[in-house]
Every structure is written in structure tokens, then in C-alpha cells.
């Protein structure tokens, strides 16, 4: 160890003491700086104006001068393009991009480069990665068995928002309250997934209320951290110890987030409620096209219908009764519910609601309603009968359509009911050897008119029941569903059931009873609802509007070929739309319950100690909510982005600054309270904040940052700066920063050419050591995300932000480089330097395979050792190797070649690493040598560093 650091150590201590005294000073102020609306400061005048590129530089230069520092010169072009490409896209530049930029002599070459990068789709992916840390985005629920969820549509929303340069105020409002916007779109509802990224439990035995409390606490805490830079969670159990935030303030904010109609225990089967169908763009495109087509078809139907009047009259004139099909048997009983007779009214028990039905009116059955037909009709066991009706069920619960209870020995018991949409019929009687019981295979759906006919055919002492659904014989099977007949009720025929709660729910229309077994043709006619003959028998001017329309409908459906064509197109199109909808992914969203639940202050933060009731509001130290708006999430979201908000813009630009410069102007991005660090450049922060609120344009801010002279400085030219300002607070140089976890892996994939660049989509499963999930997993057979099923092909090489993130065991490759587990909001990642990182770079198949493929690619187009080293070196580090470096490689190549030529089996083994197909044209020893060289190059400190 070199001991030169001792001096630095002391100076570091002194610098820190100085900072602390500043902070102590700050605390004695009357109002903490961050709670005052930023006032746009004048841009300072500085001496050396030649250096400055934009306003940022005047502010930074002022601090440099104060600290006896001078700006570093601009970095060389290789460094600049590497730095800005990594910062803006998360990927290194290609050799072609480097040489183009280096050769570009135009004065605005750099600005052009920046504009190109800001327009690339990789920008959104780069920016999203930080936002996903803030939003604690993951692909599993987190608690206990930690099974999978689908939030990647939300993740893609974030990427798209950055790429479309959605203004930050809109970005905020849609994520916090998109669901409450008027006529909220799928995309706006999708955006609210931000606050559904909290962990969810399905642990057996857990207490729902306790978990619901944690979910809401997580939401309020995260929202306060991300947008306000406030440590609100400190006020969960008591008033905040350091900041002017009371416990009451906490629960007033909490009251915006505890109204979700969700389950305490959920997530055992994918997404937890509430969630929406959120088609991917390709699916949405088809859905939109189909919707458009459906609208056209419906319009065409209507048009055809409107225009058909004269055609109907013409047709009617030529119509012969034999042209219409009519039922050969007259019914014993018809109840059409159209103009209810007094007799019918008295036989209806419960609510008597007649509403627009299948034909004319129908009767509404609410579960209590039933129609007792008394002795008007009864069904016999030894005679045939048919009973038919139009049904519009509103539930799939078990419910009785028609019932006849036989207490009297001569009357059979008949039950016709729907069980989960399946038709069940039972006829039992002392006159039958055993009860006849059948169940349909098919099911009726809810919320549609469907026709049911039950045919009881008694011939030669054998009873046979056939079921017809929508006019067609439905396949049925003998049922084992057993029910006792010993019910002490009267023997009459009842529509619905006298037993409360068992009766039909929905609408019923046109019930007919025949004392014969109707043939299939007759049943088909009834099911058509074809009462055409009857309508035609009425003179035209005496027909009701409904009858006229029904006739027109009949004409169109049976005689108008064009109408028929449109109709079948409509049906096919509807089915296609339904299929796409069913195949579309879902995403969890925010939603509020219809009626507000009271929010209590929780004593000691405990779910089971509710105290005083509070209304939703914001901390008293901050500007108040508008008086004239209801205090809901939308009002909160709008308040967050009001231009004079003291915190939002400062917190947001600080995070953007951190993304580009490696550390924030406030180095505690999560805490702008009194315990947080003071801004290093308070005026600059306020200037940027006011600049940002003018248009909330994220790309413009990033452009401003990276085109500043401050950003473009070299980091190596002035070693004395390191001694004076070890942490680079005063920005008189650029910071050398280890790449983020995602960038480390992505750079290797990109360098090798393996990377598959595709924006968005379901998360992927790249290489991971075997058995890792299984070691900690719950029941593999019952729950998802318990066993790791590695992807193959393209999905092995997607950018790392698409790697499936299981919270209880995140990707070890990424975790080694400080990627968080996304259980909680993270505003700032640490950058460690560990032996595990060395092991990943040395041995992870991801990196060995990347080395091998990089070697193949390089060997294919470069002949000499020098060219090969140079080509590989530049893809990894964005510069050519120096002479001294080349010599190290030359020597290593010679040495390795000797070793692999002596042991060709080793070479063969090495080049088999990874699933990417290998080129056979390169001798294996040569490929092994260069794979090892590439492994060294990809492991260089410089290869995983943003200069």
C-alpha cells in the first residue's frame, strides 16, 4: 500500500468538517431552504467567459473560484463520445461512431452527437433504469413465496414516455393519478402502475389489514421520496424528529393512497387486483383497426336497417304464409310479459319490473322474484311436454329457471336450473323407475339473450330429456348432481323458485309451454324468436314500433344478402377482437373505491391501533392544496407539479443531474429535509429548477447538462484537483465512474455484437447459475417464479433492464454490481468494488461468451495481432491502445498461443462456452487465445468505467 493517502485523508476530514458546519448553520435558519419556492437567481458573471458553454458553467465556475480551483480543459474526443454515449444511452459508442465524431470538424459536431443520442430509442431505456429503481419495479411480488407479476407494460410505458419526451408534469400526473383524468386512456391508467409496484403478500395465515397498511405506507413513502425528497416515513409512528412533518401530516398524505380496492392477500396467480388489460402496441394496433372496422360495420347495419322500409313493404306484398316457418303445435301457455294481465301480475311474487326484453318487454328476476302459475299448468311424468323461454342471466350462480315440486304422488318434481351457466334438468316421480337427470356440456353466458328449450319425451314407458340451447340440440350427459326432493312446498308450476336466493337472476321473456314433444325444427323456429307470422297477421298500422322493427329485422336477416354479409363480418370481427383482448397482457393499476373509507391516524404506526380520522391533505409546511378541488390523487398530482412548488422541480433536476454527473447537487437525493446535505451549488439548483418548470422538458435539461463546459471537462489533467476536492464537489473536473450493473453487462454484450436491441416486452431469463431459485423456493408445482427457466436465443442478449427481477433472489450478475433488489425505493446506488465483481467478469458465462464472440468477430476482419488487439480494445474502451498496452497484449498472445497449442483440448473446451453458435472457420487454438484476450479486455477497469 502506498501511504500517500494519509495527506488526502486529513484534507478529506477537513473538507467534511467544513461541510458539517455549513449544515449546522443551515439548521439555525428560520425556514429550511428546501421549503421555500426557488427564486430564479441571476447568472453570475465570471472572469474567464471563454470557457463557459452555457449558464451552468457560470455557476460552477463561481464555486471553483471560491475553492481556488480552475476548470479542467475539455476532454479529448474519444473520452467525450464515450462519456456522453454511456450517460445518455447506457451503451458505449461503436468504433464507427467514434471515428466519425473524431473526424467531424464542424463547430457543432458535439451538439450534433448529443442530439443524435437523445433521439435514439436507447435513451428511454437508459433513463428508465433509474426510474425503475425509484418505483421499486420488479417482476415478482416480493413477500414470502415471491411469485411472478406482470408489470412490464408499465415499465414499457416509462421507456416510451422518456423516448417521447413526455413533459415531466404530465409524466407525474399520469403516474400518480392517470386513472382519475377525464376519459382516462389505457395508457394513462397503465401509468398509475407506479404505485402498484409495492410488494404484495400471499402468505398463508397473514392478516389482510396489516398488509393493506404496509401497502399504503409504501406508496406514500415512495411518492414522498421520489417527488418531494422527503423522509415522510419517519412520521409514521410519531412526529418527524428532524423535519416539520407531523404524524398527522403523514396520515393525511397516506389518505390519498389507502383507497385502492385491493386484497390484503393476493398475487398467488399473477397480478393482484385491480389490474387492466393493457395490449402491447402491436395488439393495440389490431384492436384499434378492428374497432374501426366494427364501427363501420355497425354503421352499415344501421344504414341498411334505416333504408329497408320500402323493401319490407315490397317483400310483404309478395309474402305467402308458407314462406315463413311456423310451429306445428299450439302452445298450452304463452307468457310474453309484454302487456301483463291482471292474472299474471297477481301470480308474480317479489318485484314486478318489466323492462325492454328480447321481444317487447321481459320480466326482471332479482333472485327473489318468481311467478307462481298455480293450477294453470302442470308438467306430467307420463306425458310429453316442452318448455321454452328466452333467458338473459346476470350471474353464473346456481339458479332455478322453472320448478315444479311434487308432493302429490301424481305430480312429478321438475327442476330446470342453471349451474355456472350449464343447464341442469331433473324430473323425478314415483311413476318413473328412477329420476331423469341431465346436464348440458355447453354453458349459457351472462348478459346475453339466449334461448332455452327443454323437451321431455315420454314414449313407450321411457322418459327422455333433450336440451336445446339457442334452437340447437345441445349435447348433454347424465348428471350425478343429487338433490333431495323432500321439499315441503306446493305442487304448482313456478317460474323461478319460491325459495329465496335460489330463484333466477336476470331477465326472462316469451315463456311457452307445450303439451307435446316438439320436433327439432319447431324448437328452432321458436328459438329464432320468429313471430313473423303473428306480426304479419296484424295490419301494418296497428303494429307496435317493436313489431315493425322486428319484422324489418326478420326481412333483413332472411332476405337481404348484403345485410347477412355485414352481419357475419361483424360476428367474425367481434370474435377476433375478443381473442386479441384475451391474449393481451395485464398490468396492475391504481384505482379508488367508490365510497371513501375513513383514514385513521395509526397509533405507533400500528394497523390495529386506529386513532383519529383524518382527511386527505398535504404536509402543513408545504403550500396548501387548492380549496376548490376535492382532495383526491389527481388534485395531489396537480399540486405536486405546480410551478411554485418548493420541492418537486429541485428534486427532479437533482436526480437528472445525478444521472449525468454521477452525484447530485444535493448528494442526498432522497432527503431534502434538514438532515439531508445542503446543495453544493444552491443557486445553480434553483436556476435549473426554474428552468425546468418553464416547460418540464427532460431532454432539454439533459442536453443542457451534457453540452455544458462543466460536463465536458477532462478528469485526468489536473491531479492536484483530486487532493483539493477528493469527492469532486466543486466540479473542476469530470468524475470517473464505474458503470452501473446494467451497463457493465450491456457493454460486454454490445461489444461482442451479441446484444439484441428491441424495446420493451416481457422480461427475459438470461444465464444464471443453476438451482439458485430452487434453493429458496416454495412449492414449484403451485406457484410461478419458483424455478428458473433460462431463455434461449435472442432473449439471452437483451438489455439488462429487461432481465426478470425476482425480488427474493435478483440476478446475481447484476447484484454483484450493486443493482438493488427493488423491494423498496432506491434513489442512489452505491458503487462498490469487490472480489465478487472480479469473479463475475472472469467467469460468468455471459462475459466468457461475449469474449468468445467478440474474438470471432474480430478475427474475421483483422489479420495481425496489432489490428486485432486494437479492434477489440476500442470496442471495449472507446480508444486505441497505447504502445505500452499493445506490448502487454503481444506478449500475452504469444504466451497463451504456446499454452493452447500444447493443450488443444483446453482450447476446444473454452470456445464451447455459451449458447451462441460458434464459427467453425477459426482454428480452435487461435479462437481460444483471442477469447482469453477478449476476456482480459472486457475485464479492464476502463471497460467498466465511464470516463
Amino acid at each position, binding site marked *: 500500500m502506498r501511504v500517500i493517502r494519509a495527506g488526502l485523508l486529513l484534507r478529506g476530514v477537513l473538507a*467534511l468538517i467544513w461541510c458539517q458546519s455549513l449544515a449546522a448553520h443551515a439548521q439555525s435558519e428560520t425556514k429550511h431552504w428546501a421549503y421555500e419556492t426557488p427564486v430564479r437567481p441571476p447568472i453570475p458573471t465570471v472572469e474567464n467567459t471563454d470557457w463557459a458553454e452555457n449558464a451552468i458553467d457560470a455557476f460552477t465556475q463561481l464555486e471553483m473560484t471560491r475553492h481556488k480551483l480552475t476548470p479542467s480543459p475539455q476532454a479529448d474526443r474519444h473520452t467525450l463520445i464515450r462519456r456522453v454515449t454511456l450517460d445518455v444511452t447506457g451503451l458505449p459508442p461503436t468504433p464507427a461512431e467514434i471515428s466519425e465524431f473524431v473526424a467531424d470538424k464542424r463547430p457543432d459536431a458535439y451538439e450534433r452527437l448529443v442530439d443524435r443520442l437523445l433521439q435514439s430509442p436507447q435513451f428511454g431505456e437508459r433513463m428508465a433504469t433509474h426510474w425503475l429503481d425509484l418505483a421499486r419495479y420488479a417482476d415478482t411480488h416480493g413477500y414470502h413465496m415471491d411469485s411472478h407479476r406482470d408489470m412490464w407494460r408499465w415499465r414499457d410505458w416509462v421507456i416510451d414516455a422518456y423516448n417521447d419526451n413526455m413533459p415531466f408534469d404530465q409524466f407525474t400526473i399520469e403516474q400518480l393519478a392517470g386513472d382519475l383524468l377525464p376519459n382516462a386512456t389505457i395508457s394513462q391508467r397503465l401509468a398509475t402502475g407506479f404505485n402498484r409496484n409495492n*410488494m404484495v403478500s400471499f402468505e398463508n395465515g397473514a392478516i389482510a389489514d396489516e398488509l393493506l397498511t404496509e401497502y399504503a405506507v409504501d406508496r406514500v413513502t415512495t411518492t414522498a*421520496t421520489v417527488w418531494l425528497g422527503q423522509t415522510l416515513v419517519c412520521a409514521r409512528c410519531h412526529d418527524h424528529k428532524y423535519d416539520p412533518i407531523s404524524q398527522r401530516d403523514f396520515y393525511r398524505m397516506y389518505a390519498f393512497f389507502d383507497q385502492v380496492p385491493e386484497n390484503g392477500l393476493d398475487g398467488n396467480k399473477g397480478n393482484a387486483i385491480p389490474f387492466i388489460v393493457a395490449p402491447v402496441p402491436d395488439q393495440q394496433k389490431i384492436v384499434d383497426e378492428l374497432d374501426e372496422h366494427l364501427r363501420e360495420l355497425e354503421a352499415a347495419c344501421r344504414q341498411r336497417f334505416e333504408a329497408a322500409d320500402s323493401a319490407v313493404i315490397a317483400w310483404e306484398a309478395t309474402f305467402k304464409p308458407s314462406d315463413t316457418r311456423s310451429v306445428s303445435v299450439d302452445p298450452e301457455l304463452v307468457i310474453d310479459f309484454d302487456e301483463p294481465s291482471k292474472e299474471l301480475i297477481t301470480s308474480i311474487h317479489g318485484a314486478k319490473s318489466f323492462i325492454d326484453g328480447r321481444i317487447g318487454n321481459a320480466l326482471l328476476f332479482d333472485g327473489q322474484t318468481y311467478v307462481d302459475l298455480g293450477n294453470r299448468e302442470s308438467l306430467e311424468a307420463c306425458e310429453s311436454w316442452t318448455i321454452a323461454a328466452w333467458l338473459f342471466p346476470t350471474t353464473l350462480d346456481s339458479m332455478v329457471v322453472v320448478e315444479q315440486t311434487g308432493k302429490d304422488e301424481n305430480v312429478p318434481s321438475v327442476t330446470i336450473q342453471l349451474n355456472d351457466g350449464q343447464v341442469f334438468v331433473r324430473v323425478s316421480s314415483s311413476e318413473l323407475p328412477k329420476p331423469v337427470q341431465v346436464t348440458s356440456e355447453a354453458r349459457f353466458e351472462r348478459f346475453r339473450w339466449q334461448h332455452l328449450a327443454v323437451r321431455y319425451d315420454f314414449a313407450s314407458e321411457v322418459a327422455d330429456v333433450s336440451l336445446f340451447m339457442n334452437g340447437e340440440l345441445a349435447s348433454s350427459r347424465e348428471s350425478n348432481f343429487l338433490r333431495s326432493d323432500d321439499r315441503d312446498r306446493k305442487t304448482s308450476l313456478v317460474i323461478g323458485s319460491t325459495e329465496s336466493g335460489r330463484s333466477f337472476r336476470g331477465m326472462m321473456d316469451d315463456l311457452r309451454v307445450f303439451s307435446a314433444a316438439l320436433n327439432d325444427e319447431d324448437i328452432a323456429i321458436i328459438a329464432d324468436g320468429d313471430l313473423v307470422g303473428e306480426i304479419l297477421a296484424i295490419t301494418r298500422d296497428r303494429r307496435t314500433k317493436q313489431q315493425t322493427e322486428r319484422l324489418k329485422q326478420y326481412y333483413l336477416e332472411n332476405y337481404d344478402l348484403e345485410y347477412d354479409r355485414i352481419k357475419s363480418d361483424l360476428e367474425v370481427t367481434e370474435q377476433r377482437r375478443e381473442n386479441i383482448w384475451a391474449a393481451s397482457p395485464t398490468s396492475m393499476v391504481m384505482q379508488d373505491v367508490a365510497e371513501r373509507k375513513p383514514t385513521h391516524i395509526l397509533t405507533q404506526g400500528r394497523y390495529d391501533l386506529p386513532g383519529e380520522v383524518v382527511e386527505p391533505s398535504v404536509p402543513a409546511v408545504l403550500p396548501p392544496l387548492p380549496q376548490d378541488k376535492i382532495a383526491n390523487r389527481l388534485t395531489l398530482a396537480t399540486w405536486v407539479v405546480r410551478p411554485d412548488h418548493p420541492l418537486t422541480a429541485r428534486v427532479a433536476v437533482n436526480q437528472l443531474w445525478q444521472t449525468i454527473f454521477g452525484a447530485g447537487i444535493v448528494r442526498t437525493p*432522497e432527503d431534502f429535509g434538514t438532515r439531508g446535505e445542503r446543495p453544493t451549488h444552491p443557486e445553480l439548483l434553483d436556476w435549473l429548477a426554474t428552468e425546468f418548470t418553464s416547460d418540464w422538458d427532460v431532454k432539454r435539461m439533459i442536453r443542457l447538462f451534457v453540452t455544458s463546459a462543466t460536463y465536458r471537462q477532462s478528469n485526468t489533467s489536473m491531479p492536484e484537483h483530486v487532493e483539493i476536492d477528493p469527492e469532486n464537489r466543486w466540479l473542476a473536473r469530470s468524475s470517473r465512474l464505474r458503470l452501473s450493473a446494467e451497463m457493465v453487462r450491456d457493454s460486454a454484450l454490445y461489444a461482442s455484437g451479441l446484444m439484441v436491441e428491441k424495446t420493451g416486452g416481457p422480461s427475459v431469463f438470461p444465464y444464471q447459475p443453476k*438451482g439458485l431459485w430452487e434453493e429458496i423456493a*416454495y412449492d414449484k408445482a403451485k406457484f410461478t417464479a419458483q424455478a428458473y427457466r433460462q431463455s434461449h436465443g435472442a432473449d439471452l442478449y437483451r438489455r439488462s433492464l429487461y432481465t426478470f427481477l425476482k425480488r427474493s433472489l435478483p440476478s446475481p450478475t447484476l447484484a*454483484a454490481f450493486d443493482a438493488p433488489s427493488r423491494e423498496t425505493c432506491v434513489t442512489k446506488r452505491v458503487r462498490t468494488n469487490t472480489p465478487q465483481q*472480479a469473479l463475475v467478469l472472469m467467469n460468468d458465462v455471459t462475459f466468457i461468451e461475449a469474449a468468445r464472440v467478440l474474438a470471432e468477430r474480430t478475427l474475421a476482419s483483422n489479420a495481425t495481432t496489432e489490428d486485432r488487439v486494437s479492434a477489440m480494445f476500442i470496442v471495449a474502451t472507446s480508444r486505441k491502445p497505447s504502445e505500452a498496452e499493445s506490448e502487454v497484449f503481444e506478449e500475452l498472445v504469444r504466451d497463451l498461443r504456446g499454452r493452447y497449442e500444447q493443450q488443444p483440448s483446453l482450447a476446444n*473446451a473454452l470456445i464451447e462456452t455459451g449458447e451462441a453458435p460458434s464459427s467453425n472457420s477459426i482454428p480452435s487454438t487461435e479462437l481460444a487465445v483471442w477469447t482469453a484476450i477478449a476476456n482480459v479486455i472486457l475485464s479492464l477497469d476502463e471497460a467498466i468505467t465511464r470516463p
Partner: protein
Amino acid sequence: MTNHQNNNVTRRAFIGHTGIGVAALASLLDPKLLANDQSVPHFAPTAKRVIFLHQTGAPSQLDLYDVKPELSRWHGQELPQSVRGGQRLTTLTAGQASLPVTASPFKFARHGESGTALSELLPHTSRVVDDLCIVRSMHTEAINHDPACTMIQTGAEQPGRPSIGSWVSYGLGSESQELPAFVVLLSGGLPGDQPLSSRWWGSGFLPSQHQAVKFRKRGEPVLYLNNPAGITPEIRRRMLDSLGELNRIQSAATGDAEIDARIAQFELAYRMQESLPRIADLTEEPEHTFALYGEDARQPGTYAANCLLARRLVEQGVRFIQLYDRDWDHHTDIVSQIKVKCRETDQASAALVQDLKQRGLLKDTLIVWAGEFGRTVFCEGELAKRDYGRDHHPRCFSIWLAGGGIRPGLTYGKTDEFSYNIAENPVHIHDLQATMLRCLGIDHERLTYRYQGRDHRLTDIGGRVVSEILG
């Protein structure tokens, strides 16, 4: 093993070559911390390292450590309301019409000079009982596994906090130059066993070098340790020589000490490649070791093998070794299932105590045997004659500690006659954590880390050092 964090150049470079903990170093650097007097250790330590044997799923105190001979009188009768006192139940038994008292079917007998009563399920533990301190009055708030395990490991029920091993790594660093300060070993895991989460050995808001390194039962002992096929140690050595040379050229050009740290980490990784497989290889142990730990210890990944591995890691100076053994969650068939679990663990737990003692390591190694909570005196489901279950019970449970400054042969704390409530000397999870840190020479109130504006500590706002069980 030493680690580096680069938010302070000087700090990083300094730590890299001293092996002292970050907190210890921080006191030299950060005046704010200095004011809080964070120099670690705060006291003369009685333990240098910890082995934490976490029996996840929660073993039944009633069938193992908390002897209740009088309970047979109550067997099958309803648990008196006065005992339950309206305390909450899990949703597994909250809807149960009857909560019949269920006496343990296992015999208890007194052992050792201390005369401590233990269940017949623990014949081996009974042999070393005079070396143990049994605490029968542990309690926690969490009523389910996930929050309860998170609590005993991180001091909070909700995620985000560092685990106890991470705090120790942060506070004390490692004794070893080649091994991590914090190691985790897993065993068990039949389908349906309670799942684990890496959160329990994660570093929370502490820098991630303080998270545990997991040793695995097959393949490479730790992730990415093995060179790929075709790269021999000699070839790797040659590659690293060149890599080091190239990194040094960069270091000279940039003056960035981070690069020097990286060179050191690659060298450390190489040394780990040499040493770790040797340490993880149990086959070189003599026959009498397997006689002591049991034949299971020959099978990598078993609890017995992990106990043996823990001893080997302790010998190498690993600071904190966390074992997790699964499948103690006996909601049904506890009578048969707990027998199986005791057969799998009793001998090895006892062997570890005995082995460390005869090697002179027990005096400065703290062993803790604990679940995350206890189990109910009433049965879950029907009280069948042959078998039944017991539900989660956070209000009292039993653990034991040994070595590292803990008073041997002591039984501390008492529960009521139903092992439902604590009658004497309650010990909260935070108290246990404070006591464990105390053994390591750390004042639990002074080992803090500022995150989100607050100086966090393992014991949150609680914790009392249970001095009665020390010395």
C-alpha cells in the same frame, strides 16, 4: 476479505489495506460520526465471531425446550380465555371453533450438572446442555414467517434494512484476508417448505459488499468462483498478470485510486479461487469428525454438513456465519415431523458446540440456535390422537445461545403454565440482537448508518442487552 466503496477516495484506499471495518474507519473520517463516538469495538469483545443456526419455519418450544409437565391435565380442554387474553391469531386458526390445549407427547428429563429439562427429541443437545444458555422467554410481534424472519434477521418486519451479519461486517470487517466477513449456508427445502429470501442476508441500505456470500452445496462453492472450462489456474494467473499490468498503466494515467482497488480485488478473487474449494471440501475431515457430526455431514448441503462447514469457516476467521434450515413449520403432523427434523439437526447442533469447545474456539465464538417465533399450545385443526398441528406463536418461544461470553448452564426466562405468555424476564428480538452485538464488543445504539436522514441501527428504537445471560 476486504472491500471498497468509492464515495470517498481516501476512505476506500485506506480500508483496502487494513481490514478494519468501515465503521471503525469512519470514525477517523467523518466528524459527525466522530461526535457520536463510533469507534468500534465499543467494549472488549467476548466473541470474535457468530454462528447463527436459524431453524426457519419456527420449531415448537413446547415439544423441545419449554417443559410443561402440568399441561397433560389440560390436554384436550379449551384454552382458557384468560390465558389468550384476546391476542390475535393467524388467519389459519382464527376461524377455528375450538382451541384445545395440546400437551407435548414427548418425555422431558433433566440433564447435566445444571439439571436442565429437555425433550427426548434432543438426546445430543442434552449432552452439551451445560454449555448452553436456554432462553425460554423470547418474543416477537410478527405472526407470519416472512415478517418474522425479516425481523430476527434485520430488526424490522418490512424490507429495506441490513441483516445482522451485514451490520457486523460493516462494523467489524473480516478477520480473514481471503474470505468474506459474512457467509450464508442453506439446508432443507422439500416442496412446500417455507421459502427463504436473500433479503435476510442482504445488506439493505448498507453498501452491498456487506451482504453475505452464499456457499453452495454443489458445483462451485460460491458463485462464479470456477474458471471456465479451458482456463486453467496457470492460464488465469497469466491473464491476471497482464490485466494487472494494463490496469496499472491506466492508474498511472488517471491517478484514480479506484483502479488500484480493482487490481487488488482481482488478486483477492484469484486467492479465493485457490482457498475456497479447499475450505468447502469436507472430505479431508477425519473419520471421527463424521462420527461427531453424524453421517449426514458427508452429504453436502445437509444441515450437518453446514454445521461442519461453519466450524471450518470459523477457523478461517469468517466473522458471521448464518445457517438456515428449513421445514420447521409444523401446521400438521407435528408429532411425526418434528421427530424427523430433530433427527436431522440435533446431533450436528450439539456436535458444533462440542467441536468448537474442544478446539478452544467456543470461548470466542457465539452460537445462537433460534426460530423466528414459537408455536401454539392449542392445536391447529383437529386434535387427533396420533397427530395434529401447531400454529404460529409469537408471544413466547425458546432459543439457546452458547460460547462467546454467554453464561453456560443457565436457563433464563419463564413462560406461564401454557407456554402462552411470558411470566418472567421477557427477551425481545431486539434484546437478543443487542446482546449478540454486545458479545462482539458493539454498543447496539452506537453502530449506526445514516440513511434517509436518520441514523439507523439494527435494534431500531429498542434493544436491551440481557446482561443476566452474559459472563
